């Protein structure tokens, strides 16, 4: 079962990735690969963010059911260093409305502080392929 999920942004082009922790080697959509107890990366789309000053980056992530229902959100994470940023990890919190066998995707976006304007321009939302929890 996939049990945890998070997003990270960083790298030379500030690309965003959504990743999930798979505990037991279960097969997951869409490519059918099986991974045991490790983070699987999805949705490596670039956020079109340039010249981000070190330590000024934020990211937020949502878990979305296939019908568009939000089934979980992690709060904004901000980095205080020049390192790439991972959002807080988030466990899958199952309920009858967000069952473990449902199809989800995880969408993340980022923002960075612009010291010249004092504003926080935001990126598009990076959307993962379907995730089978």
């Amino acid at each position: 079962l996939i049990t945890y999920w998070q997003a990270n942004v960083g790298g030379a082009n500030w690309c965003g990735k959504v990743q999930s922790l798979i505990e037991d080697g279960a097969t997951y959509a869409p490519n059918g690969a099986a991974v045991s107890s490790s983070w699987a990366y999805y949705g490596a789309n670039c956020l079109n963010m340039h010249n981000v000053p070190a330590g000024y980056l934020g990211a937020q992530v949502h878990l979305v059911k296939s019908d568009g229902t939000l089934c979980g959100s992690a709060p904004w994470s901000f980095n205080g260093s020049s390192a790439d940023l991972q959002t807080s990890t988030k466990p899958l919190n199952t309920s009858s409305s967000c069952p473990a066998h449902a199809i989800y995707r995880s969408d993340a976006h980022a923002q960075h502080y612009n010291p010249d304007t004092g504003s926080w321009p935001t990126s598009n939302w990076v959307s993962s392929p379907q995730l089978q929890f």
Partner: protein
Amino acid sequence: VNIKGRHARRLGAVFLVAGVLGSITGIALGGDSISTDRPSIGGWPQDTDGDGVISDKGDERIPELIKAVGDDGTEGYVRYEDLNGPQPSSPEEAVKMSGVDRAIPLYAGDGVSVIGTYTLTSGGDPSGTADATAREAAKAEAAQAAG
């Protein structure tokens, strides 16, 4: 009688205009104004053009009230503004806000009645790098305190 009739019609017209203006003003000054740029209610948008990105434009516009499942499993809606939360005023404030849990109202479909809460919260994944970094920092702090 004709004079009274004309007066009554004028008064009626005045009340009608005042009523319409009042309604418009009331809508314009309403505290919870609905953005005309967004669909008023709906699910989180799909990646309709298949580019792997939700642009928050056109068919991929995020609605004002978004379908969500509350903390106790209740189905309802959260407001776009609540979901985004407050904007930090500086990078320093942003770091203080980082990863802090935040509970927001879960609304019924009318966007007014509060039927629960939706909490933006983190998990405690033992293999997560972010958590591992926090654990290392806590360890170092504890070691320093121990002398």
